[in-house]
């Protein structure tokens, strides 16, 4: 019976990368010191960039609102430091493009105390006011996608959320931020979850944690208050267990229909980091001005789990960790499966940045591309049961329209296919190229 139940806690396909978490999973979260200069891009989330409400030369306090939401799918932005706005202009972002940002120079003599209130009387807030508060607090999905959290909370009429699902899978190799948060701040996780659950009117909270974090499972279970409808579910260690639709399949054995959202099956999914941010805002008055970042990989001298103020340059974070080892070839923001390599150390830490990973020659070498031999490993890896081999071939032939029949838009770019490909074909990249072309194509006028 137990095995049957364990088998059910799973989704089909997926891959098993070595998880490489030993480097940082037992290191307590530390705070990095304040540095001189911060750059806060206005578009740190998916959606419309925020609108600045400060001017160059203006003095700002840590935690003060410096930009307000630019639309509904947008969030507020707060100063990560007490200091002076140096410039509002275009700065290079992680993708290498120039994007508008607010540069702040820290005041070396300030205490950096946040004069936020004791929190909020969240219980008396109406749902609309609650959603607005989440938006103003600048809270986004902290797992990596950085999708504004309040948008997920705004459920259309007639849709009933039954389950609040907290995502503590952390299936990306190397990353240990959610693991450490669950160990060190279990109360914050549970309090944040309770706030969300009550506001959403959900019946229960389920916390999904991969089975390779038994200490986190134990700690959370120990802190559950008897009157809270919370249960912790141990999940099979497999990538992408933390992809929300896969997790819903694992926990509730439900498939979210293609093109629909988790809410359509009555589930709201939030990352552990997001939930902690909610608790911090409503119970302690702290808006989102810092986040936990795992700094790891073979190329970093002292791996660590750090609380980093947003806008801190990667250079300063790496310096705090003892600098780069010789032979560094690649620095990744986020996890190695879905993160983004950065070209320069001057890129700032953003709301969605869960890790800074430093790879050397050994992890990056040997990427010769061979022809596709239709071995089918990508088909057996794809958790969406797509045919990546066919999609990649069609994309190479630029037959993008034919790819629609093979459900190219169902692909979430989790990277399983590319990870499994023995011919090193950049399948995800080819699929993205096709999606981009199909989405931005100008239809010829009839």
């Amino acid at each position: 019976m137990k095995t049957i139940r364990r088998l059910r806690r799973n989704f089909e396909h997926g891959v098993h990368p070595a998880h490489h978490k030993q480097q940082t999973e037992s290191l307590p979260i530390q705070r990095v010191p304040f540095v001189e200069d911060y750059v806060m891009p206005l578009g740190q989330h998916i959606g419309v960039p925020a609108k600045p409400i400060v001017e160059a030369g203006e003095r700002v306090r840590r935690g003060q609102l410096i930009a307000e939401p630019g639309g509904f799918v947008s969030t507020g932005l707060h100063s990560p430091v007490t200091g002076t706005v140096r410039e509002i202009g275009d700065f290079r972002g992680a993708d290498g493009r120039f994007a508008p940002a607010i540069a702040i120079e820290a005041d070396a003599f300030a205490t950096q105390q946040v004069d936020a209130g004791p929190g909020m009387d969240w219980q008396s807030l109406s749902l609309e006011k609650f959603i607005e508060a989440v938006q103003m607090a600048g809270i986004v999905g902290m797992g990596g996608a950085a999708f504004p959290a309040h948008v997920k909370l705004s459920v259309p009429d007639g849709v009933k959320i039954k389950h609040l699902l907290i995502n503590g899978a952390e299936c990306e190799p190397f990353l240990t931020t959610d693991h450490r948060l669950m160990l060190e701040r279990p109360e914050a996780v549970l309090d944040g979850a309770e706030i969300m659950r009550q506001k959403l009117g959900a019946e229960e909270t389920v916390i999904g944690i991969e089975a390779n974090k038994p200490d986190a499972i134990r700690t959370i279970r120990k802190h559950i208050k008897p009157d809270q409808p919370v249960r912790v579910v141990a999940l099979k260690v497999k990538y992408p267990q933390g992809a929300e639709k896969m997790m819903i399949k694992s926990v509730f054995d439900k498939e979210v229909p293609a093109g629909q959202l988790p809410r359509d099956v009555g589930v709201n999914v939030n990352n552990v980091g997001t939930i902690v941010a909610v608790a911090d805002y409503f119970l302690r008055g702290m808006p989102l001005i810092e986040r936990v970042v795992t700094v790891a990989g073979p190329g970093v001298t002292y791996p660590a789990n750090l609380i980093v103020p947003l806008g801190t340059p990667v250079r300063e974070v790496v310096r705090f960790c003892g600098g780069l080892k010789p032979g560094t070839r690649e620095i990744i923001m986020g996890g190695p499966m879905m993160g983004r390599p950065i070209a320069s150390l001057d890129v700032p830490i953003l709301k969605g940045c869960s890790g800074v990973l430093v790879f050397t020659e050994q992890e990056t070498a040997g990427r010769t591309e061979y022809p596709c031999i239709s071995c089918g490993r990508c088909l057996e890896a794809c958790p969406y049961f797509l045919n990546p081999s066919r999609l990649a071939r069609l994309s190479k032939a630029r037959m993008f329209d034919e790819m629609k029949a093979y459900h190219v838009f169902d692909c979430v770019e989790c990277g399983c296919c590319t990870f499994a490909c023995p011919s090193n074909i950049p399948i995800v990249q080819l699929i993205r190229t096709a999606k981009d072309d199909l989405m931005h194509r100008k239809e010829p006028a009839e």
Partner: protein
Amino acid sequence: MKKSDPDLLLFHAPLLRQGMTTPKAMRDVLYALLPATAASLWFFGLSAALILVSCIAGAVLAEWLFAHREARGESLRDASGVLTGLLLGLTLPPGLPLWMAFLGGFIGIGLGKVIWGGLGHNLFNPALLGRAFLLATFPIAMTTWVAPTGDGGFLSIYPGNLALPFMQAQVDGISSATPLGMLKFDRQVTEISQLAFGNVSGSLGETSGLLLLLGGIYLFLKRDLDWRIPVSILATVMVFSACLGLFDAERFPTPLFSVFSGGLMLGAIYMATDPVTSPVTPKGAWIFGIGVGVLVILIRVFGGLPEGVMYAILLMNAATPLIDRYTQPRVFGRGAESK
């Protein structure tokens, strides 16, 4: 950006890979074939070595000759040409003239792979295409079988091997029928134990069923092989011959005989599983394997030839794109409506 910063690579995610590469997978198949290759040397002596080397030389020469000038040598890195040569060699009779073996390897790669666009683009299994070419061109030499272990030990070679190109069509040597030929034409049944260990006449690699199976298990453990294909082929052949046996146990071969005789093991484990020419979808693999199994028995029992593995696989190769098209897996979150 400071001068002291390292030059950073910018690849697209995912930035990790599992360790397997295509050349490694090809080499694994070569390793898996080593025991069976050694057995062919044991049974047929130096002749076997010469035939295998000739086939590989022909295959590699074609690969090299037809490659783009800049890419010359690159296509040899993935070991697929060597593999085609070896597989072809294992399907040939030990007494075959060496120049024919060489030509077979050359044609197999040239017509079977290069003109389709190289590795990954061919419709038919190159080794089997080379063999089909030889069978059509030199029908007598290709069906003249000799008994294992010639009279003079390892170093003696079958006289047919040294025939001059295009001069002697005649192949001499003491011919000896294969177990399938004996069954078909003389109604003589060979012992299973003899078949399993390979001490029978036949082509170089189709003699030792157990060693071929051993290599197959190695490939399965290394996850280099779609197990559905050999399993469905062998199961279909066994079930089909058992059914026929119900009608007339005298006339039709037993399931075990069917599985261990002829080129079935070699074909089912090493040729039908060629990823390029077999379906990529799991459901397609089952259909493909069942198709091969049915065709093998139909040709063996009702056709004019004693053996039908080659044509069975080539025919199903031709059906592969169609099978793939109609067996796309059901996409997550979509009903049966998706194709």
